């Protein structure tokens, strides 16, 4: 986890940066004058935590989107490292190539083998390109499906970590059937015989997210978003302008609180004060507790019943009006 001065601050996090700068000044003064400033420094450090709390208490939907994309935010590999032991990464879709925007493999969760799969974003400029910014190609989705099948064969639960700005909209992606790849995953995931837990850990953009997002339990970390389109694209299509992303984010109701309220996700996983990027260990620890609790619950259900429940769960989603024959005739 980056420490100040290597931390990055979003525009609405600037007051925190100012506090760090003040601490820095005090430390320098203390050094020079050999006066003990630890009391003042302690106070400022507490003020930072307080400021983090204050900021997250009044976040707009757009600010939550920004937090979900925070450059210091932990990504899939980080959670794997902190939550599981003996992770063995498995590569390739056995067809085209290995897609580095999608990672997965077997791991140990306190004595139990699980399959863990997720989109992976890069942590620096070079890695970001290599990971294609977390935008998988069809072979990424097909790798994910291969690993899910493998888990099913050996009766291991599946945990997916969703963090993508969308499936990659490229020429070769179309040639290789991006739509088909995502469709196939959704279809197969809904009938997997093993427990499936999905966690939105960052961005949950549309079909690219749902392509590894169908599960018995869908959890959302506190400062994440999940909906049918990114606020930017929504703005450009519906408002015919790129400048309405804040309004689009509001209208889309894409935050974890909205999604839980609609019953489209099951639980919200709390993040450290100010967001997961402030404390990776705490973020991972909380997530681990939620995963274990849900897994224990799911394992008590008979596999056939679990599939029925999964189909029923998604089958209930939607809103419509049903007219009586009279109402229909009068229209």
């Amino acid at each position, binding site marked *: 986890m980056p420490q100040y001065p290597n931390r990055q601050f979003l525009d609405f996090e600037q007051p925190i940066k100012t506090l760090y700068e003040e601490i820095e000044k005090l430390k320098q003064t203390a050094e020079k004058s050999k006066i003990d400033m630890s009391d003042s420094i302690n106070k400022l450090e507490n003020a930072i935590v307080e400021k983090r709390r204050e900021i997250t208490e009044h976040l707009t939907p757009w600010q939550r989107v920004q937090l979900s994309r925070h450059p210091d935010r932990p990504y899939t590999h980080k959670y794997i490292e902190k939550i599981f032991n003996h992770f063995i990464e498995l590569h390739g879709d056995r067809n085209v190539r290995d897609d580095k925007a999608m990672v997965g493999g077997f791991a140990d969760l306190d004595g139990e083998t699980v399959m863990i799969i997720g989109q992976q974003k890069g942590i620096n400029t070079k890695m970001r390109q290599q990971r294609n910014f977390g935008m998988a190609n069809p072979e990424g989705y097909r790798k994910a499906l291969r690993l899910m099948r493998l888990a099913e064969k050996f009766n291991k639960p599946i945990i997916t970590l969703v963090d993508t700005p969308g499936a990659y909209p490229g020429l070769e992606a179309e040639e290789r059937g991006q739509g088909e790849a995502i469709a196939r995953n959704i279809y197969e995931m809904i009938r997997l015989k093993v427990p499936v837990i999905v966690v939105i850990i960052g961005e949950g953009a549309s079909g690219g997210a749902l392509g590894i997002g169908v599960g018995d339990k869908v959890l959302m970390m506190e400062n994440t978003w999940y909906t049918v389109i990114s606020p930017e694209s929504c703005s450009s*299509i519906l408002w015919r302008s790129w400048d309405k992303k804040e309004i689009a984010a509001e*209208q889309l*109701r894409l935050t974890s609180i909205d999604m839980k309220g*609609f019953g489209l996700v099951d639980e919200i996983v709390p993040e450290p004060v100010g967001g997961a990027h402030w404390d990776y260990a705490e973020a991972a620890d909380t997530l681990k507790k939620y995963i274990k609790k849900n897994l224990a619950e799911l394992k008590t259900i008979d596999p056939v019943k679990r599939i029925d429940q999964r189909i029923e769960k*998604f089958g209930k*989603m939607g809103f*419509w009006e049903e007219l009586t024959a009279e109402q229909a005739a009068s229209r």
Partner: protein
Amino acid sequence: MKKEREEDLELNLTGEETTSESGEVKPKWYKRIRKGITTSTTDKRETPEGLWSKCPECNYICTTTELKENLFVCPKCNHHHRIGSNEYYDFLFDGEEYIELFDNIISKDFLNFTDLKNYQKRLDEIHTKTDLKDSMRIATGKVNGEGLVIACMDFEFIGGSLGSVMGEKFSRAVDYCIEHKLPYLVISKSGGARMMESAFSLMQLAKTSGKLSQLSDAKLPYISLLTDPTFGGISASFGMLGDLNIAEPGALIGFAGPRVIKETIKKDLPEGFQRSEFLLEHGFLDFIVDRKLLKNKLHDLIVLFRN
């Protein structure tokens, strides 16, 4: 070689009035007969007589009557014009007879979604202007004597967008197929998910997949017919999940729209990219079928699946 037509597919998803594929104002025959002229939804509708239509591909001009007799396929260049559920039902079902199902399910603005216009207002306006209730209709009837359930999209209704109503009608149609042991044909024509229903529209991808799983368990055939255009959430779900995936000639089909891909790769797209023929070449379609041969081919398939 024919030039690729440029069309702003996404504009259709806004629900605003759009221009036709040729960039001109939509030909008049395409405009749905207004409310009040027809009596019930299953009645045969006549296109207005005496109108002329120009083919957007080859500029061939013929009367709308002639075009209709040719199933809205250009007599000169075989261009398949975009048509709606009424037209498909009329030429696919024997004697233009069919029963419409679940037409009492209509969209509502649960989220109070407002972009340039409020979603409910948009819905009310379309309901006033046209007799379409949503972007998908379900009907059952006979195809050369064989029973079939057909779910068909109407592109005119917010770009054939996939929302809760389409998901629910699709699901009930599957239940109907299972109950009556009938095969299922879905005719897709859509710009993608309905943004005004936000995550609810996204979840329809999973909802419909769950139902297809049940149809599969019942060993009933599911045929997905992709027509111009089919994009986004449809191709990332039931559109690509047919026991057979088939398409009309020249249809634009893909996950991401051509504009988005062009902006991403910063290159022009090759000729024929995302057309039916391109998908067939890359292994995603079982075959391409001319509209005029569709009915007989469907019949043959239903019989082959059964015997």
